[in-house]
């Protein structure tokens, strides 16, 4: 017998669902075709088909340097956040020390504090430390923003893994480090990778902190976009947007694949 509340007006629900999906995806789907327009201004539907705006992204000095900078910052952020975050996750899940709850809370604060506040706070202090407007400053800032993602994802993996495996390894004579490298790490690898990918995406798309921590000489792609976005006319912005989207989507799909292939526990 079917559950009583599973018999709603199916069509209505399906229609609502489809409409919502449309609402969720439509805006980005509008941008993608626009990036291929032949005309020199953005229009929908686009006129003709041309890859010139993607070319422009690589040939125009400002856009191409923005692209390179974004990649650099995102990769470095992913690495730094993953390392720090994985260690922290280990400490938080395995350790028993006073103040663990507080540390846990601190780890999540970057998600809670409005990003515009984080941005101006960092701007003010980083200028004094002479790291504003540089690769280093932005990587440090983005790492702080990305840490919660790593800590939570790796933490979940750690919590749900079977501790007996580690014990078995210990019983067989492995010291903690060896046990970690050969037993724990492979098992939590999906969580670590997820954290790394989320860190990358967070940095890759991040705009508000970047607005304050970049300079004319060192600028990321989202900041270039922000400068241009009010004019809404240059199709290069659409090409850049599509590129941002594609990279994010590919990484997410990669993540889904990785998750699916997670070793059985």
């Amino acid at each position: 017998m079917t559950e009583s509340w599973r018999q709603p007006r199916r069509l209505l629900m399906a229609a609502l669902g489809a409409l919502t999906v449309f609402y969720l995806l439509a805006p980005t789907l509008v941008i993608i075709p626009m990036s291929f327009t032949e005309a020199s201004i953005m229009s929908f539907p686009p006129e003709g088909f041309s890859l010139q705006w993607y070319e422009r992204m690589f040939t125009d000095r400002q856009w191409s340097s923005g692209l390179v900078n974004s990649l650099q910052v995102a990769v470095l952020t992913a690495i730094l956040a993953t390392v720090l975050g994985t260690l922290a996750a280990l400490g938080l899940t395995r350790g028993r020390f006073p103040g663990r709850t507080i540390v846990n809370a601190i780890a999540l604060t970057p998600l809670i504090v409005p990003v515009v506040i984080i941005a101006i706070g960092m701007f003010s202090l980083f200028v004094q430390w002479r790291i504003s407007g540089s690769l280093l400053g932005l990587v440090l800032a983005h790492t702080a923003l990305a840490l919660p993602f790593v800590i939570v994802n790796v933490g979940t993996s750690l919590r749900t893994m079977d501790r007996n495996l580690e014990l078995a390894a210990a019983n067989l004579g492995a010291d903690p480090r060896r046990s970690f490298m050969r037993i724990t790490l492979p098992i939590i690898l999906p969580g670590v990778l997820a954290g790394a990918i989320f860190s990358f995406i967070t940095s890759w798309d991040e705009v508000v902190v970047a607005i304050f921590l970049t300079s004319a000489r060192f600028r990321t792609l989202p900041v270039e976009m922000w400068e241009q976005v009010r004019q809404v006319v240059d199709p290069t912005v659409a090409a850049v947007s599509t590129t941002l989207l594609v990279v994010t989507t590919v990484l997410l799909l990669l993540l889904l694949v990785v998750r699916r292939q997670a070793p059985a526990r």
Partner: protein
Amino acid sequence: MKIERPGRLRGPARDRWAVLVLPALVFLVVFFLAPLVTMSIRSFTDPPDAGLSNYTEFFRQDANLRALRNTFWIAFLSTLTCLLVGYPYAYLMTIVPGRVAGLLLIGVLLPFWSSLLVRTFAWQVILRDTGVINTFLLDLGLISEPLTLIRTTGGVIIGMSHILLPFMVLPMYAVMRRIDPEYGRAAANLGATPSSAFLRVFVPLSLPGVLAGCLLVFVLALGFYITPALLGGLRDQMISQLIVDEVQQALDWGSASAMAVLLMAITFAFLFVASRFVHLRDVFGSAVEE
């Protein structure tokens, strides 16, 4: 050979684990907390004898109070919109077969992880006077003058709700899918109609998720900057825009810091109240895990 027994995680082992936390902790303290703290201090010390003057000055100006009111109002409207749109969607995800549910989930996750700037930009392109909607309607002859969709409160809500919807759906879904269908069967056995069972059994059970979602969306909406800046009109200015203007245009760090502290205080106040009803860790955790 050393035999480690379960439970023997005291002494050196405990210290070892705790030490691993230090790098990240120090990092956050130095590069995340320190900026916030120094900024808060600055709200009282810039200009040097400011004391509380930045704060009193803030409340003295009408424009600031209106911005405060706008911030709450827009956050509230966004939360309401997300709730109205997101609840059916989350519910739908629980009743469709697994594969479709997976697709619906991706439908929510993809935009969730897409750049906020790109999505806001897209809405700008769609809503403006010479944008997609207006060109479409004008070409069809349905209207003779462009509709003003952008630079309105409605435009901001559309954009913000679009971006915040996943934050509403994910916590709600996480709770909803754990609701045991047995309850439904039990209700039917007791003579309840489908809609009655839905309203009197399902909905109350889904409330923790609803609360979590609403809280998350509201708190995030308070601090939005990009979307209201691009889609909003004169009368829709939110606190975040005031803060940025103080820094970039008026160069008034004291004033900007005071506003930032106020916004933080409001945010934390909401979270504190909410923590009585939901586990914050679950709320934010669901937004952070896949």
